[in-house]
């Protein structure tokens, strides 16, 4: 049985494909809100895998990743909304968004990548906040970002006449807007998964791992550590930019408050909690951390009513409490993440055995 479920076998692939196709219809039974939650889960998978290149592969602690997402989102918003009266097609803007985010990645990376661990984390954290504050304030003297009000009426994704908002018929099946976006997001996620897998087992991926293991030895065998770190940074940033563009189009609205520090931390938590550097783990982390809060949002209120007959604790606080507790427990009992790569698991368990 487990052999059949192996994602590499034809049967495994067919099973996963069937599940992925059925999912948005199952979710729609609970209402379109659940399809949207699903969409965000996949968007986070995409983001987490982008950050995984930086944190998991190259070992660079980036606490400002959301800034690149913001850059991509605003690039899309500015080029496809009434704000500047531009309405470029999405397949033109997405690469532009990726390129702009990549440029920002290099801009941030080139002066800072000499810094190690904690210092890099602090600088990237600062960068993330700077970008957000710029977005908040770039409405005067020239109104670029429309400040805290954000940008509205952003164009939806469209291929010619086929628009991703509103319901339409595809092959005789009626698909809602979120359901259409779901399939677009799944396609993008598969793309980023393949890139992650291929990078990991490549000359570049090995060089990243070498840098993570021992930077001095890596230099000594001729790896240009600075360029390779910059490459990881730029690639991660590009993926962030693409995700931001899709976010913009899907929501039709962006404002700076979507890009706060907590978002960066959440994405990092997805990578770390799932299993840093291990692609299936990161996917699991992203899905869990994006869906769990929503389940709690809808679940804790009714649960309290059923148990105690009244609301004892404000559901919003209780939700964050349970969520935080879950994070602490995972890190306590599975320090390498929920689904770590076999090597990393061994590494951590040995360290612990050594400490005793």
């Amino acid at each position, binding site marked *: 049985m487990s052999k059949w479920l192996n994602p590499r076998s034809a049967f495994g692939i067919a099973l996963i494909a069937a599940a992925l196709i059925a999912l948005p219809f199952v979710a729609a039974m609970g209402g379109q809100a659940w399809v949207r939650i699903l969409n965000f889960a996949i968007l986070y998978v995409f983001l987490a895998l982008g950050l995984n290149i930086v944190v998991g592969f190259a070992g660079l602690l980036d606490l400002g990743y959301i800034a690149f997402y913001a850059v991509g989102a605003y690039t899309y918003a500015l080029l496809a909304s009434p704000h500047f009266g531009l309405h470029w097609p999405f397949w033109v803007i997405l690469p532009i968004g990726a390129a702009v985010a990549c440029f920002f990645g290099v801009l941030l990376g080139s002066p800072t990548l000499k810094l190690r661990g904690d210092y890099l984390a602090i600088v990237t954290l600062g960068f993330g906040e700077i970008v957000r504050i710029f977005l908040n304030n770039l409405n005067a003297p020239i109104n670029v970002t429309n400040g805290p009000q954000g940008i509205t009426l952003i164009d939806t994704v469209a291929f010619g006449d086929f628009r991703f908002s509103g319901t339409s018929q595809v092959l005789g099946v009626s698909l809602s807007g979120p359901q259409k976006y779901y399939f677009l997001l799944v396609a993008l996620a598969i793309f980023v998964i393949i890139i992650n897998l291929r990078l990991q087992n490549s000359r570049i991926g090995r060089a990243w791992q070498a840098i993570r*293991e021992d930077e001095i*030895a890596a230099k*000594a065998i001729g*790896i240009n550590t600075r360029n390779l770190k910059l490459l990881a940074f730029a690639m991660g940033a590009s993926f962030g930019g693409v995700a931001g563009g899709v976010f913009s189009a899907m929501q039709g609205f962006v404002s700076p408050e979507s890009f706060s520090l907590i978002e960066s931390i959440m994405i990092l938590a997805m990578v770390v909690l799932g299993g840093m550097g291990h692609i299936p783990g990161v996917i699991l982390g992203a899905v869990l951390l994006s869906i769990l809060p929503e389940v709690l949002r809808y679940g804790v209120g009714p649960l309290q009513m059923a148990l105690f007959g009244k609301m004892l604790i404000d559901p919003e606080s209780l939700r964050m409490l349970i969520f935080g507790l879950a994070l602490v427990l995972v890190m306590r009992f599975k320090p390498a993440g929920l689904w770590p790569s076999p090597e990393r698991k061994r590494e951590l368990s040995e360290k612990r055995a050594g400490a005793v």
Partner: protein
Amino acid sequence: MAEVLLAAKAVAKHFGGVKALRDVSLSIREGEIYGLIGPNGAGKTTFFNCMTGLYIPDGGGFDFAGAPLKADAPHQAAERGIARTFQNIRLFANMTALENVMVGRHVRTAAGVLGAMFQNRATRAEEAAIRQRAEDLLHYVRIEDRADDLAKNLSYGDQRRLEIARALATEPKLLCLDEPAAGMNATETEELRDLIEGIRRDGTTILLIEHDVKLVMGLCDRVAVLDYGALVIEDVPAVVQKDQRVIEAYLGA
């Protein structure tokens, strides 16, 4: 007489008040096994670090294969053809032995991100060649049966061999070994000696830092002695062995 491969010209390095290297000048000829000896703290490792770009010398510099070596650029030193091992072994501990050697091919290969993404024919061919070469090198240093073990799980002697294989993967003109026999027993040392001689026969010049005077004197074509960061003598082993200053440096230490 063979061409000079590496020339150190008045290399100086100090750490605060400690003068680790005092205007050291020496030259290594193509094809020789060159020994660098001296008591602990004499500055041998510091010399390696300056040469391979990990430290920036405070004075002087190096010529390698006819052109100056850029200071502060370790990856360029490797690219030019200088490979090294470390006194305290520095392997990529959580990568397999084979992967360690495969990374060593980095500087002689070219596949980039696009190649990895699209897996075009050139990339796949290069990847296969990297793997093949790495397997051959593991065989060369006789640890091919440990190919899939994590580097950290190898025995001490095998780790030293793996480090040499990784260095050889960069196709060096000059291979620098920092105390490769440290911690080895007599048999292992003997095997190491065969390995080093074999590498030289296959055309790589070798710079050897070693504590084991017997090993150095038996193996090296020429030997330089450092003491308190200064070069005492540079000559053939027979002459060095009889030099009064060398005897004093060793006995005095």
